[in-house]
Protein backbone atom coordinates (compact mmCIF):
# COMPACT_ATOMS: atom_id res chain seq x y z
CA UNK A 1 0.00 0.00 0.00
CA UNK A 2 2.87 2.36 0.87
CA UNK A 3 4.52 1.56 -2.47
CA UNK A 4 1.33 2.37 -4.34
CA UNK A 5 0.82 5.63 -2.48
CA UNK A 6 4.41 6.75 -3.12
CA UNK A 7 4.07 5.90 -6.81
CA UNK A 8 0.76 7.78 -7.06
CA UNK A 9 2.22 10.82 -5.30
CA UNK A 10 5.33 10.71 -7.52
CA UNK A 11 3.14 10.83 -10.62
CA UNK A 12 1.40 13.94 -9.29
CA UNK A 13 4.75 15.72 -8.66
CA UNK A 14 6.33 14.73 -11.95
CA UNK A 15 7.32 18.27 -13.00
CA UNK A 16 9.41 19.05 -9.90
CA UNK A 17 13.19 18.46 -9.75
CA UNK A 18 13.93 14.88 -8.71
CA UNK A 19 15.37 15.71 -5.27
CA UNK A 20 12.59 18.11 -4.32
CA UNK A 21 10.00 15.69 -5.62
CA UNK A 22 11.41 12.81 -3.58
CA UNK A 23 11.69 14.98 -0.47
CA UNK A 24 8.09 16.09 -0.84
CA UNK A 25 7.03 12.48 -1.23
CA UNK A 26 8.82 11.55 2.02
CA UNK A 27 7.33 14.49 3.92
CA UNK A 28 3.79 14.00 2.56
CA UNK A 29 3.96 10.26 3.18
CA UNK A 30 4.97 10.92 6.79
CA UNK A 31 2.18 13.48 7.35
CA UNK A 32 -0.46 11.31 5.70
CA UNK A 33 0.75 8.27 7.63
CA UNK A 34 0.64 10.18 10.89
CA UNK A 35 -2.86 11.53 10.23
CA UNK A 36 -4.19 8.15 9.11
CA UNK A 37 -2.68 6.40 12.10
CA UNK A 38 -4.03 9.00 14.54
CA UNK A 39 -7.48 8.79 12.98
CA UNK A 40 -7.46 5.01 13.07
CA UNK A 41 -6.21 4.73 16.63
CA UNK A 42 -7.96 7.66 18.28
CA UNK A 43 -11.29 7.64 16.48
CA UNK A 44 -12.00 4.64 14.29
CA UNK A 45 -10.84 1.82 16.57
CA UNK A 46 -12.74 2.98 19.71
CA UNK A 47 -15.87 3.60 17.63
CA UNK A 48 -15.62 0.23 15.89
CA UNK A 49 -15.14 -1.61 19.17
CA UNK A 50 -17.93 0.27 20.94
CA UNK A 51 -20.55 0.37 18.21
CA UNK A 52 -19.78 -2.70 16.11
CA UNK A 53 -17.65 -5.28 17.88
CA UNK A 54 -19.29 -5.04 21.30
CA UNK A 55 -22.95 -5.31 20.14
CA UNK A 56 -22.02 -8.06 17.70
CA UNK A 57 -20.13 -10.08 20.31
CA UNK A 58 -22.82 -9.66 22.97
CA UNK A 59 -25.61 -10.49 20.51
CA UNK A 60 -23.74 -13.57 19.32
CA UNK A 61 -23.03 -14.75 22.86
CA UNK A 62 -26.63 -14.15 23.97
CA UNK A 63 -28.12 -15.83 20.91
CA UNK A 64 -25.88 -18.86 21.32
CA UNK A 65 -26.64 -19.01 25.05
CA UNK A 66 -30.40 -18.77 24.53
CA UNK A 67 -30.38 -21.49 21.86
CA UNK A 68 -28.27 -23.80 24.02
CA UNK A 69 -30.52 -23.01 27.00
CA UNK A 70 -33.37 -24.29 24.84
CA UNK A 71 -31.50 -27.55 24.35
CA UNK A 72 -30.87 -27.72 28.08
CA UNK A 73 -34.58 -27.10 28.81
CA UNK A 74 -35.55 -29.84 26.35
CA UNK A 75 -33.21 -32.28 28.08
CA UNK A 76 -34.90 -31.47 31.39
CA UNK A 77 -38.38 -32.21 30.02
CA UNK A 78 -38.36 -36.00 30.58
CA UNK A 79 -37.52 -35.49 34.23
CA UNK A 80 -40.30 -32.93 34.65
CA UNK A 81 -42.77 -35.28 32.97
CA UNK A 82 -42.38 -37.66 35.91
CA UNK A 83 -42.28 -34.76 38.40
CA UNK A 84 -38.61 -35.45 39.00
CA UNK A 85 -35.58 -33.27 39.53
CA UNK A 86 -33.22 -32.99 36.56
CA UNK A 87 -29.67 -34.17 37.25
CA UNK A 88 -27.18 -31.67 38.59
CA UNK A 89 -25.24 -31.64 35.32
CA UNK A 90 -28.21 -29.99 33.59
CA UNK A 91 -28.38 -27.30 36.27
CA UNK A 92 -24.62 -26.82 35.92
CA UNK A 93 -24.81 -26.60 32.13
CA UNK A 94 -27.53 -23.96 32.23
CA UNK A 95 -25.73 -21.92 34.85
CA UNK A 96 -22.50 -22.22 32.86
CA UNK A 97 -24.19 -20.88 29.73
CA UNK A 98 -25.57 -17.90 31.62
CA UNK A 99 -22.18 -17.23 33.23
CA UNK A 100 -20.45 -17.38 29.84
CA UNK A 101 -22.85 -14.93 28.25
CA UNK A 102 -22.55 -12.59 31.22
CA UNK A 103 -18.78 -12.96 31.07
CA UNK A 104 -18.71 -11.99 27.40
CA UNK A 105 -20.82 -8.92 28.13
CA UNK A 106 -18.59 -7.90 31.04
CA UNK A 107 -15.47 -8.56 29.00
CA UNK A 108 -16.71 -6.41 26.14
CA UNK A 109 -17.60 -3.64 28.55
CA UNK A 110 -14.06 -3.79 29.90
CA UNK A 111 -12.64 -3.84 26.39
CA UNK A 112 -14.63 -0.74 25.44
CA UNK A 113 -13.37 0.99 28.58
CA UNK A 114 -9.79 0.09 27.68
CA UNK A 115 -10.13 1.08 24.04
CA UNK A 116 -11.52 4.48 25.02
CA UNK A 117 -8.08 5.23 26.43
CA UNK A 118 -6.75 5.14 22.87
CA UNK A 119 -8.39 8.54 22.35
CA UNK A 120 -5.64 10.11 24.41
CA UNK A 121 -2.64 8.33 22.85
CA UNK A 122 0.22 10.83 22.41
CA UNK A 123 1.60 11.79 19.02
CA UNK A 124 5.08 10.46 19.79
CA UNK A 125 3.70 6.93 19.71
CA UNK A 126 2.50 7.48 16.15
CA UNK A 127 5.94 8.82 15.16
CA UNK A 128 7.49 5.75 16.72
CA UNK A 129 5.02 3.51 14.93
CA UNK A 130 5.78 5.19 11.60
CA UNK A 131 9.50 4.72 12.17
CA UNK A 132 8.97 1.04 13.00
CA UNK A 133 6.78 0.66 9.91
CA UNK A 134 9.43 2.37 7.78
CA UNK A 135 12.08 0.02 9.11
CA UNK A 136 9.87 -2.96 8.39
CA UNK A 137 9.13 -1.59 4.93
CA UNK A 138 12.83 -1.10 4.44
CA UNK A 139 13.51 -4.66 5.56
CA UNK A 140 10.87 -6.17 3.30
CA UNK A 141 11.50 -3.79 0.40
CA UNK A 142 14.00 -6.11 -1.23
CA UNK A 143 12.72 -9.31 0.27
CA UNK A 144 12.58 -11.00 -3.11
CA UNK A 145 16.36 -10.51 -3.54
CA UNK A 146 18.00 -9.07 -0.40
CA UNK A 147 21.57 -9.30 -1.74
CA UNK A 148 20.86 -7.71 -5.07
CA UNK A 149 22.87 -4.57 -5.79
CA UNK A 150 20.18 -3.31 -8.08
CA UNK A 151 17.42 -3.32 -5.42
CA UNK A 152 17.53 -0.18 -3.33
CA UNK A 153 16.01 -0.16 0.13
CA UNK A 154 13.37 2.52 0.78
CA UNK A 155 15.04 4.16 3.80
CA UNK A 156 18.40 4.90 2.10
CA UNK A 157 16.44 6.05 -0.95
CA UNK A 158 14.33 8.36 1.22
CA UNK A 159 17.36 9.67 3.12
CA UNK A 160 19.21 10.29 -0.12
CA UNK A 161 16.12 12.01 -1.53
CA UNK A 162 15.93 14.30 1.50
CA UNK A 163 19.62 15.16 1.18
CA UNK A 164 19.25 15.82 -2.53
CA UNK A 165 16.12 17.85 -1.93
CA UNK A 166 17.90 19.95 0.67
CA UNK A 167 20.77 20.45 -1.78
CA UNK A 168 18.39 21.54 -4.52
CA UNK A 169 16.59 23.82 -2.10
CA UNK A 170 19.90 25.46 -1.13
CA UNK A 171 20.89 25.85 -4.77
CA UNK A 172 17.49 27.31 -5.64
CA UNK A 173 17.66 29.72 -2.73
CA UNK A 174 21.20 30.79 -3.70
CA UNK A 175 20.12 31.28 -7.29
CA UNK A 176 17.10 33.30 -6.18
CA UNK A 177 19.35 35.40 -3.95
CA UNK A 178 21.78 35.98 -6.78
CA UNK A 179 18.97 37.08 -9.12
CA UNK A 180 17.53 39.38 -6.50
CA UNK A 181 20.92 41.01 -5.94
CA UNK A 182 21.42 41.41 -9.68
CA UNK A 183 18.01 43.04 -10.00
CA UNK A 184 18.56 45.43 -7.10
CA UNK A 185 22.20 46.37 -7.84
CA UNK A 186 22.68 47.41 -11.52
Amino acid sequence: MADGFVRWLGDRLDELPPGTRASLIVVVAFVVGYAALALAVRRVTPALVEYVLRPAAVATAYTAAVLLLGVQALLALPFRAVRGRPPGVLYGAGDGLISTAIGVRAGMRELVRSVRRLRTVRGRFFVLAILVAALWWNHSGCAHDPRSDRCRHPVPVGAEALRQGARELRQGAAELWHRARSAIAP
Partner: protein
Amino acid sequence: MAHSPVLYIEELSRFPLRPRRAPVPGCAHVYLGRGGRLYCPAGGLTAGELWWLGPRLVYGVDVTAHPFELAVEVPPAAGGPPVDVELTASWQVVDPVRVVAGRLFDVLAVAHPYLLAAVRDAARGVPWSTGRELARALGTGPLPSVDIPVGVRVEHVRAAVPSTDDSGDAYTGPGLARDG
Protein backbone atom coordinates in the same frame (compact mmCIF):
# COMPACT_ATOMS: atom_id res chain seq x y z
CA MET B 1 -39.35 -13.44 65.55
CA ALA B 2 -41.25 -13.35 62.28
CA HIS B 3 -43.09 -16.53 61.38
CA SER B 4 -43.30 -16.01 57.65
CA PRO B 5 -42.69 -19.02 55.43
CA VAL B 6 -41.95 -16.77 52.45
CA LEU B 7 -38.26 -15.91 52.63
CA TYR B 8 -38.05 -13.72 49.55
CA ILE B 9 -39.87 -12.71 46.39
CA GLU B 10 -37.88 -11.97 43.27
CA GLU B 11 -39.03 -10.54 39.97
CA LEU B 12 -37.75 -12.43 36.97
CA SER B 13 -37.10 -11.28 33.42
CA ARG B 14 -35.47 -12.87 30.42
CA PHE B 15 -33.13 -9.95 29.76
CA PRO B 16 -30.58 -9.10 30.84
CA LEU B 17 -29.41 -12.64 31.51
CA ARG B 18 -28.82 -13.09 35.21
CA PRO B 19 -27.47 -15.96 37.31
CA ARG B 20 -30.18 -18.22 38.65
CA ARG B 21 -30.83 -18.05 42.38
CA ALA B 22 -30.35 -21.65 43.40
CA PRO B 23 -32.69 -22.86 46.17
CA VAL B 24 -30.77 -23.66 49.32
CA PRO B 25 -31.63 -26.78 51.37
CA GLY B 26 -34.86 -26.20 53.27
CA CYS B 27 -36.12 -23.68 50.73
CA ALA B 28 -38.51 -24.48 47.90
CA HIS B 29 -39.03 -22.25 44.88
CA VAL B 30 -42.56 -21.45 43.79
CA TYR B 31 -42.88 -19.78 40.39
CA LEU B 32 -45.64 -17.56 39.11
CA GLY B 33 -46.00 -18.40 35.43
CA ARG B 34 -46.95 -16.10 32.57
CA GLY B 35 -50.50 -17.40 32.72
CA GLY B 36 -50.79 -16.72 36.44
CA ARG B 37 -50.29 -20.38 37.41
CA LEU B 38 -48.21 -21.22 40.47
CA TYR B 39 -45.95 -24.25 40.36
CA CYS B 40 -43.15 -25.72 42.42
CA PRO B 41 -40.89 -28.00 40.36
CA ALA B 42 -38.57 -30.31 42.26
CA GLY B 43 -35.18 -28.70 42.76
CA GLY B 44 -36.30 -25.42 41.18
CA LEU B 45 -36.19 -24.59 37.50
CA THR B 46 -32.96 -24.97 35.56
CA ALA B 47 -31.55 -21.91 33.80
CA GLY B 48 -32.91 -23.13 30.46
CA GLU B 49 -36.39 -23.70 31.86
CA LEU B 50 -36.28 -20.31 33.55
CA TRP B 51 -35.50 -18.58 30.26
CA TRP B 52 -37.86 -20.50 28.03
CA LEU B 53 -40.81 -20.75 30.44
CA GLY B 54 -40.27 -17.16 31.56
CA PRO B 55 -42.00 -17.09 34.97
CA ARG B 56 -42.62 -13.60 36.33
CA LEU B 57 -41.92 -14.16 40.01
CA VAL B 58 -40.14 -16.66 42.22
CA TYR B 59 -41.03 -17.13 45.87
CA GLY B 60 -38.52 -18.72 48.22
CA VAL B 61 -40.57 -20.76 50.71
CA ASP B 62 -39.08 -22.10 53.92
CA VAL B 63 -40.00 -25.77 54.29
CA THR B 64 -38.10 -26.47 57.51
CA ALA B 65 -39.76 -27.02 60.89
CA HIS B 66 -40.10 -23.97 63.13
CA PRO B 67 -40.83 -24.43 66.85
CA PHE B 68 -42.92 -21.75 68.46
CA GLU B 69 -44.84 -20.86 71.58
CA LEU B 70 -48.27 -19.33 71.54
CA ALA B 71 -50.71 -18.29 74.26
CA VAL B 72 -54.41 -18.69 73.57
CA GLU B 73 -57.43 -17.87 75.66
CA VAL B 74 -59.96 -20.70 75.73
CA PRO B 75 -63.46 -19.74 76.89
CA PRO B 76 -65.35 -22.53 78.71
CA ALA B 77 -68.31 -23.95 76.86
CA ALA B 78 -70.57 -23.29 79.85
CA GLY B 79 -69.49 -19.68 80.02
CA GLY B 80 -67.21 -17.95 82.43
CA PRO B 81 -63.79 -16.35 82.30
CA PRO B 82 -61.48 -17.69 79.58
CA VAL B 83 -58.52 -19.82 80.60
CA ASP B 84 -55.03 -19.05 79.30
CA VAL B 85 -53.34 -21.98 77.60
CA GLU B 86 -49.71 -21.93 76.55
CA LEU B 87 -48.98 -23.96 73.47
CA THR B 88 -45.62 -25.17 72.23
CA ALA B 89 -45.53 -26.68 68.78
CA SER B 90 -43.73 -26.45 65.47
CA TRP B 91 -45.03 -25.45 62.09
CA GLN B 92 -43.80 -26.67 58.77
CA VAL B 93 -44.82 -25.94 55.22
CA VAL B 94 -46.17 -29.04 53.49
CA ASP B 95 -47.46 -27.39 50.31
CA PRO B 96 -45.40 -24.37 49.17
CA VAL B 97 -47.79 -23.58 46.31
CA ARG B 98 -50.73 -23.22 48.67
CA VAL B 99 -48.64 -21.05 50.98
CA VAL B 100 -48.00 -18.62 48.12
CA ALA B 101 -51.53 -18.89 46.74
CA GLY B 102 -52.90 -18.15 50.23
CA ARG B 103 -50.48 -15.23 50.69
CA LEU B 104 -49.37 -16.65 54.00
CA PHE B 105 -46.91 -14.28 55.63
CA ASP B 106 -47.70 -14.84 59.33
CA VAL B 107 -48.20 -18.46 60.26
CA LEU B 108 -49.07 -17.80 63.91
CA ALA B 109 -51.81 -15.34 63.06
CA VAL B 110 -53.39 -17.83 60.70
CA ALA B 111 -52.79 -20.83 62.95
CA HIS B 112 -54.29 -19.20 66.05
CA PRO B 113 -57.98 -20.10 65.44
CA TYR B 114 -57.05 -23.60 64.29
CA LEU B 115 -55.01 -24.19 67.44
CA LEU B 116 -57.77 -22.80 69.59
CA ALA B 117 -60.17 -25.21 67.94
CA ALA B 118 -57.67 -28.04 68.47
CA VAL B 119 -57.49 -27.29 72.20
CA ARG B 120 -61.27 -27.20 72.42
CA ASP B 121 -61.55 -30.49 70.53
CA ALA B 122 -58.99 -32.09 72.81
CA ALA B 123 -60.98 -31.05 75.89
CA ARG B 124 -64.32 -31.94 74.37
CA GLY B 125 -66.37 -34.47 76.31
CA VAL B 126 -65.04 -33.36 79.68
CA PRO B 127 -66.86 -30.43 81.23
CA TRP B 128 -64.47 -27.82 82.58
CA SER B 129 -64.64 -24.30 83.81
CA THR B 130 -61.29 -23.71 85.55
CA GLY B 131 -57.72 -23.99 84.47
CA ARG B 132 -57.12 -27.06 86.58
CA GLU B 133 -60.16 -28.81 85.08
CA LEU B 134 -59.07 -27.86 81.59
CA ALA B 135 -55.59 -29.21 82.28
CA ARG B 136 -57.05 -32.52 83.37
CA ALA B 137 -59.24 -32.56 80.27
CA LEU B 138 -56.27 -31.98 78.02
CA GLY B 139 -54.12 -34.66 79.63
CA THR B 140 -50.36 -34.88 79.33
CA GLY B 141 -49.89 -36.18 75.79
CA PRO B 142 -49.42 -34.10 72.70
CA LEU B 143 -52.42 -32.80 70.82
CA PRO B 144 -53.09 -34.06 67.32
CA SER B 145 -51.36 -32.31 64.44
CA VAL B 146 -53.26 -29.45 62.88
CA ASP B 147 -53.41 -29.04 59.12
CA ILE B 148 -53.96 -25.43 58.17
CA PRO B 149 -55.52 -25.23 54.72
CA VAL B 150 -52.91 -22.82 53.40
CA GLY B 151 -50.23 -25.49 53.12
CA VAL B 152 -48.89 -25.56 56.69
CA ARG B 153 -48.99 -28.34 59.28
CA VAL B 154 -48.59 -27.68 63.00
CA GLU B 155 -47.13 -30.68 64.80
CA HIS B 156 -45.92 -31.72 68.24
CA VAL B 157 -48.54 -29.54 69.85
CA ARG B 158 -48.31 -29.49 73.60
CA ALA B 159 -50.63 -27.47 75.79
CA ALA B 160 -49.86 -26.16 79.24
CA VAL B 161 -52.32 -24.37 81.47
CA PRO B 162 -50.47 -21.92 83.70
CA SER B 163 -51.30 -22.17 87.36
CA THR B 164 -53.30 -19.32 88.78
CA ASP B 165 -52.14 -20.05 92.35
CA ASP B 166 -48.89 -18.73 93.79
CA SER B 167 -46.72 -21.70 92.82
CA GLY B 168 -46.24 -20.44 89.28
CA ASP B 169 -46.27 -23.99 87.93
CA ALA B 170 -48.38 -25.24 85.06
CA TYR B 171 -51.24 -27.67 85.53
CA THR B 172 -50.34 -29.73 82.50
CA GLY B 173 -47.11 -31.33 81.45
CA PRO B 174 -44.81 -31.78 84.51
CA GLY B 175 -47.25 -29.78 86.59
CA LEU B 176 -50.11 -32.12 85.88
CA ALA B 177 -47.94 -35.12 86.58
CA ARG B 178 -47.08 -33.60 89.94
CA ASP B 179 -50.73 -32.94 90.69
CA GLY B 180 -51.46 -36.54 89.86
